[in-house]
C-alpha cells in the first residue's frame, strides 16, 4: 500500500511538471579554440519574444544550467559575452543539452563620457577633455584651445605651444589642412569635439621617431562619434544695417570618416571679415624682389583691427580633401579662392627727425580702395611609414591687387597700384631608415613671376603724371638636399647633410616722373652648397644637437643697365647648437645658438632709384655686395604642470647682425629717399619675456600674465648725419577669464600697457617716449542655457603728446539664441558711435601718428542652421 502511494505521488509530480512546462536547459559554451568560457550570459526567450524569461551564467568549466517554465512550443537560447559574437539557437521546449561555440569579435561598445576629468596624460600626449575645458561662451574650438596651459594664439590664429610654433594640426590623426588649420580651429564647434590631444615633442615623420628630437608640439582633435561619418557644419544668412545695408552668407561643412576627410567652406560678407590676409602658418616661399616691392598698405597699418575701419565686400571658398589610401599613404587635395574689396580712410602724420634737432611733419589724408584676389591649388601625396617617408607636394598660387589711393593733405595725389604674381612650386622629400642608417633626399623648386606690377601717381587737379613706376620680375628657387645618418649607441645620431640651394632672380624696372631715372635691369644667381655634419645626442632627459655647416657661396649678380657686376666665391663655416634638457618631467630648458653669414643679396646691385609710393624713393643697393654676419642666442625655460593647469615661461633672445652697409635716408617736403652706403653697421637686438598662466579647471577660471622687454641698438644716416638709434619697449599684459553662478555669467578681461622709448644719439632733443594702454572686457550672460547676451567694452589710451592721452571707448554686443539646430544671432558693433581711432608708433627715428575713420554703429542679424 505504501509503495503504491509513493508511485502515485511520483506520477502526480511528473504530471504536474509536464503540465507546467518546466524544463531544464544545460550545455557547454566554448571559445573558437575549444576552451570553456566562464561568465557567458545565457538567456532564454520564448520564440518570437523580445524579453528573456530566464538567464544563467556559465561556471568556470563553461557550463550552464537554467530551469525554465513555459508553455511555448519552442524556445531560443542566446549566449553573449563581450569580445565574442553572440550566438543563438532555437530549440524545442524540453529538457536537453545545447552546446555553443563563440567566435571572437571586435568589441563594439559606444565610448561615452558623461563626466570626465579635464586632463589625462599618456607619455608625451596630453589629452584635454573638451566638455570639461570649454567655457559657456566658446564659439569655436580655438576658444577652447586658447585655454590649454602653454598655448598662445596670435592674431592670425597661429598656435604656439611653450613658445614654439606647432608643427602639425591633425583631425583624427590626419593632417588635411597643413598650415591652414585656422579653417578648422576658427570654425569647428566645441560640442563636436571630444578631446584636444597635445603631442609634446612631436616628430611627425615616423621614420625619425626616437632619432630626431623635436621641440615642437602638434595638436590633434578627436571628434565625438556623432560628428563622424556624416557632414557636420552650418549654413548662415544674415542682414542688417550700418553705413548702408550689411549682409553675410556662409556655408561650412566638415566630414570626417575613417579613410577620408573633407572640409568645404564658402563665405561672403560686408561686415568686416577679410579673407586675403590669411597666410600659411607653417612656412611658405618668397616671390622675389618684384613681388614684394609695392607694400599692401603703403601708407601705414593700423593698430586697430581691420574690422573697425575697413568697409569691405569679401568672398572666399575653400575645398580641402584628404584620402587615406593605405595605413601609411595619404593624398591631400586643396583649392582656395579669396577676394576682398576694401575702402577705408585715414590720415597719417609723419614726424621726421632731421638734423640739428629739426623736425619735418608731413600730413597725408588717404582714401583707399583695395581690390585683392588670391587663388591656390595644392596636391600632396605622403607616405609616412616606420622605415620610409616620401612626400611630393605640388602647388600653384596666384594673387592680384588693384588698389586706388586718393591722397590729400600736404599734396593732392591719386595713386594706383597693380600687382599680379603667379607662382608654382614642387617639393619632394624622401627619408629612409634601414637598421641604424638614416638617409634623406629633399628637392624643392619654386618659380614665381611678377608679370605686372606698377604704381601710377597723378596730380588730380592738374591731371598730370607725377610718377609711374613699373617692376617686373622672376624668381626661381631650387633646393636639393640629402643626408646620411647612422644611429650611434642607443639613440644618438651622427649625420652628414649635403645641400644645394640655387636661386635665380630677375628684376626689370621703368620709371616716368618729373625727373625720370633710367630703366633698371638686374639679374643674378646664387648657389649655396653646404655640407653639415651633425651629432645628435640623447641621454634620457638631455638632448643636444651640434652641427658645423661648411658652406660654399657662389653668386654673381649683374646690373645690366648700369654695366656693373659683383661675384662672391668663398666658403664659410657656420656652427649651430640646439640644447634641450628636461627635468622633473615638467621643466625644460632649451638653448639655441647659431652663427651664419650671407654674402649679399640680389638687391645689392639694384642701384636705380625706384618709387614705392608717390613720395618714397628707394635705392635698394649701393652696387656692392653687403657681407652680413648673424649671431643669435635664444635660451628658454619652460615649466608646465598641465594637470594643475600651470605654465611658466622665461625666455631671452639676443641677435647681433653685422653688415657692410648702412641705411641712409633724406627727407624733404616732396620726397623721402632711402639708400644704402658702404659702412660697417651693427644691430643689437635684445629681448626677454616672462609668462605665467594658470587654469583652474574646477571653477572655470583662466589667468595669464606676461611681461616683455626688448631693446634695439643700431646706426643709420639721416640727412647725411650719423645717428645712433636706441629703442626700448616695455610691455605688460594680462588676461583673465572665468565664470560664476555655475557659468551663467562669464567674463573675459584683457589689459595691456606698452611704453616705447627712443633716443637717436647725435640728434638734439631726440629722446621721446610714449605709452599705449588698452583693456577689453567681455561679459556674457546666460539667463537660460540656450540664450547668451554679451557685451564687449574696449578702452584705449594713446599718448598723443607728452602726458596727454587720447582715450577711446568702444562698445560691441550681441545676443545669441540657440534653438536645437537653429541659432539666431544679433551682432552689434561700435555702439558708442566712435568714428575715429588714433595710434602712434615709432619707425626707426620717425614717429607716425595715424587717425582712422571707423565704421559707424552697425548691426547684423543672422540665422544659422547647424547640421
Amino acid at each position, binding site marked *: 500500500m505504501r509503495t503504491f502511494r509513493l508511485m502515485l505521488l511520483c506520477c502526480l509530480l511528473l504530471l504536474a511538471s509536464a503540465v507546467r512546462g518546466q524544463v531544464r536547459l544545460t550545455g557547454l559554451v566554448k571559445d573558437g579554440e575549444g576552451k570553456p568560457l*566562464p*561568465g*557567458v*550570459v545565457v*538567456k532564454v526567450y520564448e520564440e518570437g519574444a523580445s524579453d*528573456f524569461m530566464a*538567464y544563467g*551564467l556559465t*561556471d*568556470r568549466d563553461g557550463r550552464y544550467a537554467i530551469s525554465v517554465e513555459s508553455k511555448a512550443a519552442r524556445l531560443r537560447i542566446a549566449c*553573449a*559575452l*563581450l*569580445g565574442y559574437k*553572440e550566438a543563438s539557437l532555437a530549440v524545442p521546449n524540453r529538457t536537453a543539452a545545447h552546446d555553443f561555440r563563440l567566435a571572437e569579435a571586435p*568589441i563594439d*561598445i*559606444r*565610448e*561615452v*563620457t*558623461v*563626466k*570626465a*576629468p579635464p586632463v*589625462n*596624460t*599618456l*607619455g608625451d600626449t596630453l589629452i584635454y577633455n573638451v566638455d570639461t575645458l570649454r567655457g559657456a561662451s566658446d564659439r569655436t574650438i580655438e576658444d577652447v584651445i586658447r585655454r590649454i596651459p602653454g598655448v598662445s594664439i596670435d592674431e592670425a590664429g597661429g598656435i604656439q605651444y611653450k613658445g614654439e610654433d606647432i608643427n602639425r594640426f591633425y583631425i583624427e590623426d590626419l593632417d588635411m589642412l597643413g598650415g591652414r588649420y585656422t579653417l578648422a580651429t576658427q570654425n569647428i564647434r566645441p560640442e563636436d569635439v571630444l578631446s584636444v590631444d597635445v603631442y609634446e615633442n612631436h616628430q611627425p615623420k615616423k621614420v625619425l621617431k626616437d632619432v630626431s628630437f623635436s621641440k615642437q608640439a602638434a595638436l590633434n582633435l578627436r571628434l565625438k562619434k556623432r560628428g563622424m561619418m556624416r557632414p557636420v557644419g552650418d549654413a548662415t544668412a544674415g542682414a542688417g544695417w550700418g553705413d548702408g545695408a550689411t549682409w553675410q552668407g556662409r556655408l561650412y561643412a566638415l566630414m570626417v570618416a575613417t579613410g577620408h576627410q573633407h572640409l568645404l567652406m564658402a563665405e561672403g560678407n560686408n561686415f568686416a571679415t577679410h579673407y586675403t590676409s590669411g597666410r600659411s602658418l607653417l612656412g611658405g616661399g618668397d616671390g622675389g624682389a618684384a613681388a614684394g616691392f609695392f607694400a599692401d598698405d603703403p601708407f601705414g597699418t593700423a593698430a586697430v583691427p581691420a574690422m573697425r575701419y575697413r568697409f569691405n565686400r569679401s568672398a572666399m571658398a575653400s575645398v580641402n580633401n584628404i584620402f587615406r589610401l593605405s595605413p601609411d599613404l595619404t593624398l591631400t587635395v586643396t583649392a582656395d579662392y579669396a577676394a576682398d574689396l576694401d575702402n577705408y580712410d585715414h590720415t597719417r602724420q609723419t614726424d621726421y627727425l632731421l638734423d640739428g634737432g629739426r623736425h619735418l611733419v608731413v600730413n597725408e589724408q588717404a582714401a583707399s580702395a583695395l581690390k585683392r584676389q588670391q587663388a591656390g591649388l595644392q596636391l600632396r601625396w605622403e607616405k609616412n611609414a616606420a622605415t620610409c617617408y616620401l612626400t611630393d607636394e605640388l602647388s600653384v598660387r596666384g594673387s592680384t591687387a588693384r588698389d586706388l589711393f586718393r591722397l590729400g593733405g600736404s599734396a593732392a595725389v591719386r595713386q594706383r597700384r597693380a600687382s599680379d604674381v603667379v607662382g608654382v612650386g614642387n617639393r619632394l622629400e624622401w627619408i629612409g631608415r634601414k637598421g641604424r642608417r638614416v638617409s634623406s633626399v629633399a628637392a624643392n623648386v619654386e618659380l614665381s613671376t611678377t608679370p605686372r606690377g606698377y604704381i601710377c601717381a597723378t596730380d588730380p587737379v592738374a591731371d598730370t603724371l607725377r610718377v609711374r613706376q613699373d617692376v617686373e620680375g622672376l624668381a626661381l628657387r631650387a633646393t636639393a638636399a640629402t643626408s646620411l645618418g647612422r644611429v650611434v649607441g642607443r639613440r644618438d645620431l651622427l649625420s652628414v647633410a649635403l645641400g644645394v640651394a640655387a636661386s635665380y632672380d630677375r628684376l626689370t624696372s621703368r620709371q616716368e616722373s618729373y625727373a625720370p631715372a633710367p630703366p633698371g635691369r638686374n639679374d643674378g644667381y646664387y648657389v649655396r652648397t653646404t655640407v653639415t655634419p651633425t651629432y645628435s645626442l640623447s641621454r634620457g632627459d638631455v638632448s643636444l644637437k651640434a652641427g658645423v655647416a661648411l658652406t660654399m657661396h657662389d653668386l654673381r649678380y649683374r646690373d645690366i643697365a648700369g654695366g656693373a657686376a659683383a661675384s662672391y666665391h668663398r666658403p664659410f663655416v657656420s656652427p649651430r647648437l640646439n640644447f634641450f634638457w628636461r627635468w*622633473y*618631467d*615638467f621643466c625644460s630648458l632649451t638653448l639655441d645658438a647659431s652663427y651664419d653669414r650671407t654674402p649679399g643679396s640680389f638687391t645689392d646691385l639694384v642701384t636705380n632709384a625706384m618709387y614705392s609710393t608717390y613720395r618714397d624713393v628707394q635705392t635698394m643697393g649701393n652696387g656692392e655686395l653687403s657681407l652680413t654676419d648673424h649671431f643669435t642666442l635664444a635660451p628658454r625655460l619652460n615649466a608646465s*604642470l598641465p*594637470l*594643475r593647469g600651470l605654465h611658466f615661461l622665461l625666455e631671452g633672445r639676443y641677435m647681433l647682425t653685422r653688415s657692410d652697409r648702412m641705411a641712409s635716408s633724406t627727407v624733404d617736403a616732396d620726397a623721402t629717399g632711402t639708400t644704402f652706403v658702404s659702412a660697417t653697421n651693427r644691430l643689437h637686438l635684445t629681448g626677454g619675456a616672462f609668462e605665467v598662466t594658470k587654469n583652474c579647471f574646477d571653477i572655470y577660471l583662466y589667468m595669464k600674465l606676461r611681461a616683455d622687454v626688448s631693446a634695439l641698438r643700431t646706426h643709420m644716416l639721416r640727412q647725411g648725419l650719423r645717428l645712433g638709434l636706441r629703442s626700448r619697449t616695455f610691455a605688460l599684459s594680462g588676461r583673465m577669464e572665468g565664470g560664476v553662478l555655475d557659468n551663467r555669467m562669464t567674463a573675459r578681461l584683457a589689459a595691456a600697457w606698452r611704453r616705447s622709448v627712443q633716443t637717436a644719439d647725435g640728434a638734439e632733443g631726440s629722446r621721446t617716449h610714449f605709452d599705449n594702454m588698452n583693456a577689453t572686457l567681455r561679459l556674457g550672460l546666460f539667463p537660460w542655457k540656450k540664450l547668451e547676451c554679451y557685451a564687449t567694452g574696449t578702452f584705449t589710451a594713446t599718448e598723443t603728446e607728452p602726458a596727454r592721452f587720447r582715450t577711446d571707448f568702444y562698445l560691441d554686443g550681441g545676443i545669441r539664441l540657440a534653438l536645437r539646430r537653429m541659432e539666431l544671432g544679433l551682432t552689434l558693433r561700435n555702439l558708442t558711435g566712435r568714428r575715429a581711432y588714433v595710434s602712434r608708433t615709432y619707425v626707426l627715428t620717425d614717429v607716425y601718428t595715424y587717425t582712422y575713420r571707423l565704421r559707424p554703429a552697425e548691426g547684423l542679424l543672422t540665422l544659422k542652421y547647424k547640421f
Partner: protein
Amino acid sequence: MEFIYEQTDVDTVLSRAKTNSYILQVGRELTLYGDYMAYRVDSACNAMNWQVTHATFDSIFSLYPSGQMPDFLYDTRADLFKVHERYLFDVYLYEDSTAHFDWTLLPDTTTVCGYLCRKAEATFRGIGWTAWYAPDIPMSFGPWKLKGLPGLVLWAYDDKGTHDIKLISARRGNNCPITFKRAGCFHMRRERVRKLMEKNKASPASYKSLTGLSVSHADGNGNPRPLPVKRKFYVPYELE
C-alpha cells in the same frame, strides 16, 4: 575595456559624504576595480616603461593623490575575488569565493550613460542593493563585488542611501596591464579584515600596525601629542 565610476559613500555617524572615482578594468579573465588616481599613476609610469626615479614617481604621485582605497580583483574563471584593504601602514589581502547575489529582476528601465538599463534587487551580507544593469553589455559583473546579472552593472545603490556607484565614462582600454600586488600584504580571512577595519576606523588611537611600526603624533617642535580619538570616515559595504 575600462569603465570609470563615481562612488559616493555617506557616513551617517559623522554626517559626511565622500566621492571618489574608481575604474573597472576588464580583461579576458580578470577584472580589477580600484582607485582611479592610483590607476593614473600606474598609467603615467607605464608610459615611461617604469623607468622612473623616486623624484619622478613622487612628482607623479603628488599629481594624483590616492586615498588608500581598496582594490577588488575578480578572476572570472575561478569565480574568486581577491581584495586589498588598506589602513595606514597595513595592507590586508583576503580571498572571497562566496560573493553570490540572489538577484530579483524587475521590469523597470532607465538610461545610464546612454545605455538602456534594467533593474534588479538583492540583499547581500546585510545590505539591500538595487542595481541597474545594461543587457547590451554582456558582462556579468560590475563595480565592487556586484555580479551575477545578465549585463554590466552601471549604477547601484543601497537601501539606506549610504552607497551610490554610477558609471561616468566607458572607453576602450589603453593596454595598461592589470596589476595586483600580493607581496607585502597580510593575508587573512575576510571576516577578520572587516573587523580590523571597523576597529581601526572607529577608534584610531587603538591602532597597532601588524608591521610593528607605531604611529605617533608630534607638534612642530617634535613634542609628542595625544593620538586622535575622533572616529574616522567609515562606511562598510558588508555588515556580516
